[in-house]
């Protein structure tokens, strides 16, 4: 590490491809700056080799990102509906349990069978409701 005043400008000079006469003279004298210049040049050379291979075109990237953004928005928007469905099912189950428990003279076994029968009706309804709400998004 040195405090050479030329050091901070070397990377930019290599990037611009324009070394001032002053800097060229300095590089011949200063080993630290000369090393920095050589490393910067090699790194840029290597990077430009890697950058030659074209990546996905901008239009296709924009299309893919937009699709992802739409999906993300839909996922976020349907989150409350998914929770509403869960809460709805839980509320029905609790209510059914309370109703069955409040019927006088009903045995424990009958209550369990009644609850299971109710669940068998409510569960598909809840699933249909959640799928319907998803298909609307």
């Amino acid at each position, binding site marked *: 590490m040195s405090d050479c005043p030329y050091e901070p400008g070397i990377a930019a000079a290599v990037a611009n491809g324009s070394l001032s006469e002053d800097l060229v003279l300095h590089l011949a004298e200063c080993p630290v700056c000369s090393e920095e210049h*050589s490393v910067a040049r090699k*790194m840029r050379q290597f990077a430009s080799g*890697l950058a030659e291979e074209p990546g996905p075109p901008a239009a296709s990237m924009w299309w893919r990102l937009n699709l992802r953004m739409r999906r993300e928005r839909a996922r976020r928007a349907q989150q409350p509906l998914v929770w509403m469905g869960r809460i709805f099912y839980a509320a029905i189950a609790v209510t059914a349990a309370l109703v069955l428990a409040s019927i006088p003279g009903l045995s424990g076994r009958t209550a369990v069978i009644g609850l299971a029968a109710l669940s068998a009706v409510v569960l598909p309804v809840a699933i249909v409701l959640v799928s319907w709400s998803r298909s609307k998004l």
Partner: protein
Amino acid sequence: MDEESFHAFYEQTARNLRAYLRSMLTDQSAVDDLLQESYFRLLKAGLPPATEPAHQKNYLYRIATNLVHDQRRSHKLEVLPEELATPSMANCLDQAHDIERALDRLKPRERDVLWLAYVECFNHREIAGILHLGAASIRPMLARARAKFAGILRRREVRE
């Protein structure tokens, strides 16, 4: 960001960002996924339209660097194995191959610092922001990475 400004920004940054990812990642098949993920997170961040391109670029590299670090953590591999090198990399000129080998022998953090300083020309403060490090630590880190990299290249030249 609207479509037109995205296109302009993408054309300006994508090639170099992809090269950065190719150089930093051990798993080359993940390059395009991470490229897409970087731009996706940038769009999702919803930077104000008046944000300067330099700031957007800085933010993009911060995202990409975080993704690279996550990838490294999940792969626990720091050196690019021979069989993972893509054919285009293997066919590079000898000098590019030497540079690649030398970079492989650096620590990931040192590679990051060299790339961000000399390829992207970010200043020390920007590099510190991208790597989540203190600004004062960048200068000595860069000097160490540079000396190590130059030393490795010199030794290779002497051997040949």
